[in-house]
């Protein structure tokens, strides 16, 4: 994994974790409109970044588009326990 991909993955991890925390907070605070707006902002950023990551490097998740039509890329890069 090159430095550029690693940096983008780290960014995805940070936004993803923010969403994980907001999600369970909102499960018990349904009407906190500030937190809902914050969740939505992170959700938009995450979706855009995940799409770019999957197109440029390798699919982020099992529903991601492959970087090209020629090759099945799910196993192109290492799995996260092998760095």
């Amino acid at each position, binding site marked *: 994994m090159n430095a550029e991909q690693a940096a983008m*993955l*780290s960014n*995805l*991890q940070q936004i*993803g*974790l923010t969403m*994980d*925390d907001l*999600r*369970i*907070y909102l*499960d*018990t*605070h*349904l009407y906190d409109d500030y937190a809902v707006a914050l969740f939505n902002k992170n959700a938009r950023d995450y979706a855009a970044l995940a799409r770019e990551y999957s197109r440029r490097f*390798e*699919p*982020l*998740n*099992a*529903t991601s588009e492959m970087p090209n039509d020629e090759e099945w890329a799910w196993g192109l*890069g290492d*799995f*996260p*326990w092998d*760095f």
Partner: protein
Amino acid sequence: MWVYEKKLQYPVKITNTNPRLAKQLISQYGGPDGELSAALRYLNQRFTMPTNNTKGLVTDIGTEELAHLEIIGTMVYQLTRDADREQILEAGYDSVVDHGRGLFYVSATGVPWTATYIQAKDDPIADLIEDMAAEQKARATYNHLMSLTDDPSVLDVLRFLREREIVHFQRFGEALVQVQENYACKKVF
């Protein structure tokens, strides 16, 4: 259903080999208060939770516990993958007899995972209070593990996981209050 995402929830990069620590960490993989117990407990309770909001909460926390299971698995794997014969013998990492470098769902004392670690009562008060206790037991286990190592790359991850137990405890507590208020409302009106 679930969709796998090819990333850890929190980064793990352990370069030190330490099969002895792996033997201790495995308890949060397949021990009584480990992440497997947590994930299976919450995801299984979903079917009889009383409201869609509580179903959402146990779904979300149960899913996060699966991500924590992967984090613990990664730590155990990275601590043992480069261990040589001498290190394995010295640490008494006898898991290699049955499993090689593969992971297995056991506690630190070698007890295999069992469904008796978890309960399902079809009673949201009983279930949520069990969940709160489970989060505290997991937090205490992380405390114990943190007292056993000074490896900063391990401590950093354990500190993160311990914090998540505290957050989950808080969320389950809020859900419990809401469920109790919901029951009280029905009696009044």
